[in-house]
């Protein structure tokens, strides 16, 4: 079976029919929230907890990724699974990072046979690309994951929630102490809907002032020495790029946003934490300052640069699903209008009014983009898993202006293709592509093209950009993937937008 973008969909999955098609006719299904009756919640060790619940073969365990590449909790649970020789476990971490390398052995030994996640890179991604995971990997979006959990589609037996500070009843937050990571937005649907909820903390106190994690949902608390490595908790890139090509892309992006009339009072804006994204934020900041613009909000993962803009009065509010650096954590603690949002409030397509739907402008990246503006952020052009949607598809769908920024040519490879290796975000949600060699506007957005008439920006069609890139790189020999399905890319509505394949022998 093929979906509306012509991609194969394995049996048992719903094919993607368009960004809006299914959502429009979908009713929000909410399974009942699961609260607790436990009163004596503090358990001595994870091992005791496994015995108490008990955690057995075939269960589904979930995790959040707020500790990013410093996370210790998933690995602690894996160690227990290994020790107990549990089999056929399903894991549902909101993201998997290189630090989760110990999972490789458990996949190969079929202790873990099924995984749901929104983002994956490092050795676990490599292992799955090579075909070791027994059942297809399911790649969700940040908004799609809470949709799947709240509807009962993804049933979680036990949610392990790393919490930097917790009291003895389970009220907790991420703002204090050694493992402070800030807002805990990705954990909220797990907290509300998993059958059992376990807080794992390294800082147990008598009272917490701001409880993002509420005691009424928490069944058990396990205190460990350290839930993570603080060095890995802060996101890698939190400085604007100095790379001249990326700086040019950032400047052109800001100019484009300006010429399209979005730098105006009430602007709502989202960008990531990469060097180019931060450089775009700085350029937007300059223009907002010059024009004395007051924006309404910035959202998503929050960086020190967005905090700076908020504190200068350029954005009235920050909606924070996760903090990317310690300045963002400090701001979340002290600034009353730096507000937490759950992943559901952020991007769940069935929320009444998710934050993404109120975005004016979002700046996103791409590992590949094709002439239909479909974007790949899940695999590289050889089919290796290197990321995933995260909030890509959710924000691209919701924002009034979705801009993809990427070098046209990277490592002698064109980032614009006739057809992307994997579709993560459909072209219908993508409005503009900014590269160092020109800007392409999606022809579906005639309104934008009209507005840019007479612009001095270097506007080209995406086909012209592809031709320019090909002139430099030549035409690469297409890689034939193997036929073995290793996973699916699930759009935010639960339909399958693309399928992931094992790398063939000659590619490996």
């Amino acid at each position, binding site marked *: 079976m093929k979906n509306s973008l012509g991609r194969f969909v394995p049996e048992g999955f719903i094919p993607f029919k368009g960004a809006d098609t299914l959502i429009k006719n979908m009713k929000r299904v909410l399974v009942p929230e699961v609260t607790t009756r436990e009163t004596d919640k503090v358990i001595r060790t994870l091992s005791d907890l496994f015995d108490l619940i008990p955690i057995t073969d075939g269960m589904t365990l979930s995790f959040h990724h707020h500790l990013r590449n410093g996370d210790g909790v998933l690995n602690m649970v894996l160690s227990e699974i290994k020790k107990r020789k549990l089999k056929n476990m399903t894991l549902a971490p909101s993201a998997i990072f290189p630090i989760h390398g110990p999972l490789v052995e458990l996949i190969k030994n079929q202790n873990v046979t099924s995984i749901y996640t929104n983002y994956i890179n490092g050795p676990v991604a490599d292992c799955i690309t090579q075909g070791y995971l027994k059942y297809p990997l399911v790649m969700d979006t940040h908004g799609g994951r809470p949709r799947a959990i709240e509807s009962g589609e993804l049933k979680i037996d036990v949610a392990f929630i790393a919490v930097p500070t917790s009291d003895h009843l389970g009220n907790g937050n991420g703002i204090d102490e050694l493992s402070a990571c800030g807002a805990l937005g990705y954990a909220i649907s797990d907290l509300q809907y998993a059958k059992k909820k376990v807080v794992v903390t390294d800082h147990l106190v008598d009272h917490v002032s701001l409880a993002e994690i509420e005691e009424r949902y928490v069944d058990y608390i396990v205190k460990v020495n350290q839930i993570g490595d603080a060095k890995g908790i802060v996101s890698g890139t939190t400085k604007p790029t*100095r790379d*001249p*090509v990326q700086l*040019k892309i950032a*400047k052109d992006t800001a100019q484009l946003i300006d010429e399209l009339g979005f730098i105006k009072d009430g602007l709502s804006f989202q960008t990531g934490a990469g060097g180019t994204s931060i450089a775009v934020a700085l350029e937007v900041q300059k223009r907002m300052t010059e024009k004395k613009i007051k924006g309404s909000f910035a959202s998503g993962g929050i960086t020190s640069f967005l905090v700076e803009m908020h504190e200068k009065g350029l954005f009235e509010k920050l909606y924070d699903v996760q903090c990317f650096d310690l300045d963002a954590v400090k701001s979340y603690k002290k600034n009353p209008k730096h507000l937490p949002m759950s992943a559901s409030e952020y991007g769940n397509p069935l929320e009444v009014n998710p934050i993404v739907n109120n975005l004016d402008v979002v700046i996103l990246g791409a590992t590949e983009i094709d002439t239909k503006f479909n974007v790949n952020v899940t695999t590289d052009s050889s089919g290796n898993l290197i990321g995933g949607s995260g909030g890509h598809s959710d924000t691209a769908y919701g924002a009034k202006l979705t801009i993809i920024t990427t070098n046209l040519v990277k490592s002698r490879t064109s980032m614009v293709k006739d057809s992307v290796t994997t579709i993560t975000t459909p072209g219908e949600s993508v409005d503009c592509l900014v590269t*160092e*060699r020109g800007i392409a506007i999606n022809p579906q957005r005639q309104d934008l093209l009209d507005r840019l008439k007479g612009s*001095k920006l270097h506007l080209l069609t995406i086909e012209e950009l592809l031709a320019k890139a090909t*002139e*430099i790189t030549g035409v690469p020999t297409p890689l034939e993937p193997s036929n073995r399905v290793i996973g699916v890319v699930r759009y935010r509505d639960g339909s399958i937008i693309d399928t992931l394949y094992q790398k063939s022998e000659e590619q490996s």
Partner: protein
Amino acid sequence: MLQNADIFQSDGVIFDLEDAVMLSEKDAAVHLLDNFLKSYAFENLEIVIRINQLDSEFSRVELEQIVSDKIDTLMLPKATAKNTNALSKMLDKLEKSKKMNKKIGIIPIIELASSVLEAKEIASVNRVNGLLLGGEDLSTDLEVERTEDGLELLLARGLVVLAAKAYKLDAIDTPYTKTNDEEGLNKDSSYAKKIGMNAKVCIHPNQIDTVNTVFSPSIQEIEYARKVVKAEADALSTGKGAFTVDGKMIDKPIIDRAKKLLDKAQRWGLL
């Protein structure tokens, strides 16, 4: 890096075969550049090659290989009137033997005290289309330290400007070497513009925007030039001999300057 040479909106790009290339890599660099230029088409960009000193063992071989219709200008280090003339004659021969369509220009680098003193003779050589002040080597020759205010280069800058303008050539200022200091670059460029330089070499792509901004006519300058040109047209049509703009008497040099500025603005797409 080579493949991105044409994306930064500079007027030209200088491929350096001299100081940026280690002695052991000279042959490879010429070969790489030659192949790159053959395979890559640049649009609206002056292609400049900084060759090795003319009396070095490399220059003749590299000239043989690199001079073609793919390039526009050669930049000559440690220029003197004598070696600039010699290069011009070598180019005469090469262009003839290679049956080239283009006439290659020369930008001599004025980076010796003796070159500053003969800047006028150097500027007069056939093919020279600009003079570049080489501040670092000149400071070494003068036995002075480079400073932020550039006082040590004041006279040299002035003489280069005078020689260039006397022959209607570009007066190109020495690069600002602190690549992370945007404010310093802005000050240095503004100063160079004020004393008559009309271009500046960048040593990092991140400098191009600032230099372009400083050396491009500003909106105010363009508006004023437009007023002057319009006032001149009005005066001519009404038979007035003298006229004022914003209370200032306008004479021929001001009109010429305004027209030049509007030409420049037109060429750079600023109108």
